[in-house]
Structures are given as structure tokens and as C-alpha cells.
């Protein structure tokens, strides 16, 4: 690819921990390969320069107030392609836990007596709830290889290969002992794969950071969790960590 043919790419962060951009920065020597196919014009974790002339915008974080909304809309106007990266940007992420809580209490917990000085939406939203999003890189944090795969796909003009099946597929391919067989409980059966079941491979459980698959059988999974002895409240907690925005959006459909 000739240097002048490379699309210009810029990173932007909203409400989030910037851990997804850190994953990109952590590509280390591979970042040079990345630079062969895109020209970075804005990425505050690795460079000081900034330009508003970009083709591809990577969005990290969820959208939580009107300033963010305005800024994201402007980015959408500037960019040909918008890519949401990380759970906060793709599904509302951890920020959306508050969506199911009493908003005044949430504000008080975060801002205390100063709360009236801070404007914030009652509900945190993913980027796609505010603007059109062309591609998503799921996960908390994102997987570096999957990020590269999506960027490559954009440059090549093909659809990236993002699984729409549950984590159970990868868990079985990796021959893990199922969390349910270890007397633990996970949300892998409704969570989008693509992480190579990395958490379960290490002996823990799936928390659902890649969000629910497009057509999850939530009802069945809630029943199963209750059958395995979890209380209704415990079941909700399993689902609330990452799925709150998605659950509400599905109910509104």
C-alpha cells in the first residue's frame, strides 16, 4: 500500500478508562505494521499532534451527557467510517450499570454535594445509540488481534469476521471444564464469542464483556441460573455488569 493511499485514522475517548486505546498502544512493534496501512493523525496516548482531517474515527467510552453527544456527532460528520471500540462504546459497558439504579443516588455517590454542577444523563449509552456506527470491536478491553483484523477489513473493504455465537463455542473448542460443572455460574451462554474464551481458559468465568449475541436466549439462561440455585437478585447481578443497556434496548424493541 502506498503511504499516500492509507486512510487517516483518529482516536477519541468518551466516558471510559482508555484501556482499549492502551491495548492499541500495547501493540508495540506491531503498531509499525498498523502504520503501513493507516496514517494516524490523532491518538493522544502515543502522539502529541492532532488533526480533524480523518477518514476513520475510533470511539472509546460511552456517551453520558449532551457535550459528549455533540462532540460525537461532530466526529461522525468529519469521518467516513466510525468504529466503536470496547464495551463502553459498543454496549454501554460498565458505565451502564447505573442505568438500572436510582439516578439521584448515583449522582450523590459520585459528586456528593457538588452534584448540581455536573450535567449527566440518567443512562449511559453506547456510541450507536447516538450516531450511526459502522464497525464494532467488542470486549473489555478489546483484543489486540481482533482490532487489527477489523482495521485490515476496513482497509480491504471487506466485512470483518466477528462471531455471533456464544462463548460456549470457544470454551468447548478449548476443551475447558464448563463453569457450571465447577459449581460456578457464568453468562457465556448468552455472550458474544471472539475472545477465545480467555477468562475461562484461565480457570475463571465469563462476565459478558463482549455483550450479548444478537439473539440471546436470556429467558432460558435466567431460568437455568435460578435452577442452579441463584436467587433472582443474584441472577440480575450476573446480567447487570455489562448487559444493562442491551437488556433495556431489547425490551424497547
Amino acid at each position, binding site marked *: 500500500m502506498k503511504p499516500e493511499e492509507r486512510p487517516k485514522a483518529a482516536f477519541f475517548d468518551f466516558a471510559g478508562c482508555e484501556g482499549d486505546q492502551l491495548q492499541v498502544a500495547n501493540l508495540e512493534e506491531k503498531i509499525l505494521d498498523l502504520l503501513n496501512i493507516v496514517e494516524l493523525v490523532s491518538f493522544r496516548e502515543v502522539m502529541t499532534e492532532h488533526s480533524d482531517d480523518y477518514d476513520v474515527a475510533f470511539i472509546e467510552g460511552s456517551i453520558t451527557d449532551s457535550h459528549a453527544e455533540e462532540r460525537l456527532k461532530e466526529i461522525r460528520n468529519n469521518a467516513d467510517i466510525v468504529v466503536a471500540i470496547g464495551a463502553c462504546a459498543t454496549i454501554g459497558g460498565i458505565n451502564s450499570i447505573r442505568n438500572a439504579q436510582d439516578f439521584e443516588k448515583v449522582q450523590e455517590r459520585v459528586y456528593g454535594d457538588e452534584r448540581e454542577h455536573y450535567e449527566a444523563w440518567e443512562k449511559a449509552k453506547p456510541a450507536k445509540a447516538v450516531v450511526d456506527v459502522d464497525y464494532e470491536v467488542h470486549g473489555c478491553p478489546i483484543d489486540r488481534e481482533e482490532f487489527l483484523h477489523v482495521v485490515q477489513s476496513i482497509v480491504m473493504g471487506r466485512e470483518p469476521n466477528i462471531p455471533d*455465537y456464544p462463548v460456549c463455542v470457544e470454551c468447548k473448542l478449548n476443551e475447558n471444564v464448563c463453569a457450571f460443572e465447577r459449581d460456578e455460574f457464568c453468562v457465556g*451462554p448468552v455472550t458474544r464469542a471472539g475472545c477465545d474464551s480467555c477468562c475461562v481458559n484461565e480457570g475463571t468465568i465469563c462476565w459478558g464483556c463482549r455483550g450479548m449475541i*444478537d439473539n440471546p436466549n436470556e429467558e432460558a439462561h435466567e431460568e437455568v441460573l435460578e435452577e442452579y440455585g441463584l436467587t433472582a437478585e443474584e441472577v440480575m447481578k450476573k446480567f447487570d455488569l455489562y448487559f444493562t443497556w442491551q437488556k433495556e434496548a431489547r425490551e424497547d424493541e
Partner: protein
Amino acid sequence: MKVIKKEDLENFVDELIANNEKEVVGVKSKDSKYVFDKLENAEELELDYDVTILPPKKYFMPQRETLVEYETREGIEMEAVNEVVPRIIIGIHPYDLEAIKQMDKVFADSPEDDNYLEKREKSVLIGVNMKQISEWSFAGSMGTATIEDGYDLMLTDLGDRYAVEIGTSKGRELLERESLEMRDAEPEEVEEVENIEENIQNGFEKELDFSPQNLPWLLAENYGDEDFWEENAEDCYSCGTCNIVCPTCYCFDVQDFSDISLEEGERMRQWDGCMLEAFAEVAGGENFREERAERYRHRYMRKGRYLYNRFGDIACVGCGRCSSQCVPDIADPTDIFNKLWSDKDE
């Protein structure tokens, strides 16, 4: 039939490992379960296991496998790839041996699948009669609790010894070692093996209420009973677990993965499953089995009918992996088949 002392078998396995001519894999424990995995020493071998998480199929058709490597620097250059590791696989239960026999037919069917067949050809299969039976298994009903062929060597535990049945010349050659202390089985030992095999038949908690030969007819009769399939598929996650752990599921998906340079890459295949929503989706977005119940029905049709019509085998060997690993517990073939059978006169 031959007989070998347990300690001599252990030495034999250690020698095979040290020999390094072929990779030696066998059944090992993994937490509370069992898996086929590379053996570091004979002590790791667990020949009295109940069932492994995945069947040994993974050695002939790996979960993920490169089929083609390509580069596009100067024109397009492609090369077919088949990474063959010759292996000795120790501890295969009869139902899995039966499944391998069936898969051999499937992959030898035109067009022949060299990636499978070459790996299969370079493998030595050492079977073992079941000592422990999984509570989910119904191999007794499927005629796969014991087996007459399909192995290179077959072991039966006789307490302090193993009876060794030689199935093929490949198996015989493996035993041709001066250091190996082995003798002919005595009549009592031959009888003991026969008794053990007979007892295995009676050790199953789950069973089919009818001969599996009725399955093609039974499934054809009930194909259109949509209420039945919908009701039973209601709690299905479409997670594909029952497909992936099945010794006779062989579907795969092929994808190209380009390197970040965009100048080279590989074509990979990965196990796929008909329970997954995108399995029957084609270009243009049409999905031939969009509904959970349609996919759920399809798996039973494949196992009990479609593959029988094509290859002559009932493609369920009764290992019980699908039902034991299904979290909502809706994948038990005996449950579905027996319900259909008892309803047949209504």
C-alpha cells in the same frame, strides 16, 4: 489375544514416549473431567475414565486448522497445507472408535479430505473397554458399548494385567519390541474378557426404549410436528455445545485471515455447528434455519436419519457428551427419541 502386566504396559508407554517416533497422547484428567492430551509419562494415563470432554476426532480434524497459505507480493501464490503429526492415541472407548469408523467414511467420500485422511492414516488407535460408564451414556442401546474392529489394539483391564486384542498389522508392529514382556492369553482370561464385555452392556443408566434401527422412520414421521420441536427447543441457547462435543459432527467453516501486511495470509477451517444461528445463513442474508426449533430438529435429523440415508450408519454413538454438557439439559437424545417413540401411536 495377548496379556500384559500393568507395570509392563506402563513401561511400554514410557518407551513409546521416549522413542519420540510418534507423539503419544492419551486420556488425562483435567480438573474433575478427562481430556485426550499429550502424555509426558505413562503415569498420567487414566484408563478408567468415564468420558472425555472432546472426542479424539480432534486429532484428525483439529478445532482450527490451516488449509492454505497464500501471499500476494508478486501475483498470487498459494500452497495447500496439512500439518500431520503421527500419533499413538491411547484409551479410546468403543463408542469413539465407532464414531471414527463413521468419520473415516465421511471424509473418504468424494471429494476426499486429505487433511483428515493423512492424519488418520498416520495414527495408531489403542482402544480400551470401559471401566467407568458416564451416567449420560447410552452406548448399550446404540450397539457401541463394545466393538469388534476399528482399533489397532484393544485393551481390557483384568486387575493386575491388561488383555490386548490385536486389531491390525499397525497394532501388531507397535508391539514388536524385544523389551516387551507379553504372553498369549489363557482360556480363563479370554473368558474373563468376554464376561467383562457382556457386563458392560448392562451398566448403562440411560437407554433407548427401542432399536435404533427405527430412528430413520421415527424421525421422518415426526419431522412436521412443529409443536414438539418448538416445545423442546424453548430453552436452547443455540450455543453449539452439543455439536462441538459430538464425535460424529464434522461441519466446519472456512475463512481467510490476512496478515496485517495485507500481502500474506492463510485460509483456516474451524469447527462449526448446525445449532449456531449463522450456520445456515447464505449470501444475501437468507437463513434456511432461522428458528431455534428448526436448528434443534435438524441435529436429531442428522444423527438419526440424514446420515443414515447417506452412509448407512445411525450417527449417534450414545457417548452422552451432548446431554452431559448441555447447561439447560435439553440435548439428551434418549429423552427426545423415547418421547417420540412413546407418542407414535397417538
